[in-house]
């Protein structure tokens, strides 16, 4: 078992060696520009890109022509929101999204609001982080042009009822965008069955290279049109100009193919390891709380709040294990995670949360080591914690009047 252990697969993933192998020829030998139509270098590159499009489309049960390559899911989110708003501005300017979306969607929505280009409704989520489809239905007006709800949350792993929301969107004639970055390749995603019109996802979350992502844009029933945000040559059917990063795209395609083949067995394995990690930690440590839905969550995701201990100190104590925290110090501002706050988790518990993200290359040994380490460090930190001491003596911390000065 090698240290340090990587358990932060929701932030990024190591590239699968098979993906790297598929990419290498396209850096030095087959280095042509896929848009060069006049020579063999260009034709070889174009063929590789077309093949990747097919592999990616197969994973999400779409048509290859419906895949637009971008620089990542953030760009895809931007393109979806801004592109739809611009194209359908005659119809209206109302967007419905949720309060736990990724920053790429929330910040784009806020920016559109600030520019006066959109009115946005941010739907609340329930205590486990799920969006209620009825809330979506109630929020739709005759000026609504887009609903954007993520498939699975990156912090708490909760999976949203996308199929039901897709049905409502279709019924009301509103376009439905789904940010599926954390779900694609990990749980089955089918754009037709789920009624999705636009979908963002990226390569580096599924053992592919960083720097490439895709936007699925539906071609039939209805035909979705978006205004390009990056102009210059009309690549990708006029929706996103720029020379295609052929090696990255080849890697993306290979990563999708591997996920398609291995998803069922991998998610079963990860769920088992995650459940073992959860049971091991929560059985040994009192006052530890699971954030997110207990069963309807991503197979490799675990998010626990440990009362009386601040998140970053736990991470410092476990320096051989790479994890993430929803505590304030690990974000640029001093605000605790907005996702946890949207769940109604109190500020103290939001500051004490840890997110574990299991992935393809984690082993049972690593899980055992992590369980041991978490218990050890938590116990040591709780011994140091004055709040823990007070709670043990029976003081109700909520009744304390803290004097500020």
């Amino acid at each position, binding site marked *: 078992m090698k240290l340090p252990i990587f358990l932060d697969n929701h932030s990024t993933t190591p590239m699968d060696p098979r993906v790297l192998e598929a990419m290498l020829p396209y850096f030095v030998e087959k280095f042509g520009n896929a848009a060069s139509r006049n020579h063999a270098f260009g034709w070889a590159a174009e063929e590789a890109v077309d093949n990747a499009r097919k592999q990616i489309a197969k994973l999400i049960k779409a048509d290859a022509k419906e895949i637009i390559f971008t620089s990542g899911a953030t760009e895809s989110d931007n393109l979806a929101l801004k592109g739809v708003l611009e194209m359908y501005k005659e119809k209206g300017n109302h967007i419905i999204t949720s309060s736990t979306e990724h920053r790429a969607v929330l910040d784009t929505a806020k920016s559109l609001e600030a520019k006066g280009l959109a009115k946005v409704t941010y739907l609340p989520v329930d205590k486990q982080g799920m969006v209620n489809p009825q809330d979506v239905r109630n929020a739709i007006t005759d000026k609504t042009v887009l609903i954007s709800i993520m498939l699975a949350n990156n912090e708490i792993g909760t999976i949203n009822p996308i199929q039901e929301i897709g049905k409502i969107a279709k019924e009301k004639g509103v376009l439905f965008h789904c940010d599926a970055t954390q779900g694609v390749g990990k749980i089955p995603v089918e754009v037709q069955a789920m009624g999705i019109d636009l979908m963002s996802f990226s390569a580096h979350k599924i053992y592919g290279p960083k720097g490439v992502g895709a936007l699925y844009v539906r071609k039939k029933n209805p035909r979705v049109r978006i205004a390009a945000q990056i102009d210059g040559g009309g690549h990708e059917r006029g929706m996103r100009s720029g020379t295609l990063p052929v090696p990255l795209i080849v890697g993306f395609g290979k990563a999708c193919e591997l996920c398609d083949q291995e998803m069922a067995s991998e998610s079963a394995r990860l769920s088992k390891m995650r459940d073992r990690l959860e049971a091991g930690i929560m059985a040994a440590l009192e006052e530890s709380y699971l954030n997110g839905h207990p069963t309807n969550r991503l197979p490799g995701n675990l998010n626990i709040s440990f009362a009386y201990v601040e998140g970053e*100190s736990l991470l*410092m104590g476990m320096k051989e294990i790479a994890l993430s925290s929803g505590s304030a110090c690990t974000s640029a501002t001093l605000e605790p995670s907005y996702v946890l706050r949207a769940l109604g988790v109190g500020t103290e518990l939001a500051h004490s949360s840890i997110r574990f993200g299991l992935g393809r290359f984690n082993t049972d040994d690593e899980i055992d080591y992590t369980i041991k380490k978490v218990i050890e460090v938590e116990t040591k930190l709780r011994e*140091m914690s004055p709040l823990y001491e007070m709670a043990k003596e029976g003081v109700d911390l909520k009744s304390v009047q803290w004097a500020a*000065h």
Partner: protein
Amino acid sequence: MAYSDKVVDHFNSPRNMGSCKKDEDGGGTGMVGAP
């Protein structure tokens, strides 16, 4: 942006840590935070 050596040192070997008994003589109180 790794943690500085001083921070890591104080984290691994905390100084001046502990609790006083409630009824012990000579204990004082202080305020936490920046003035």
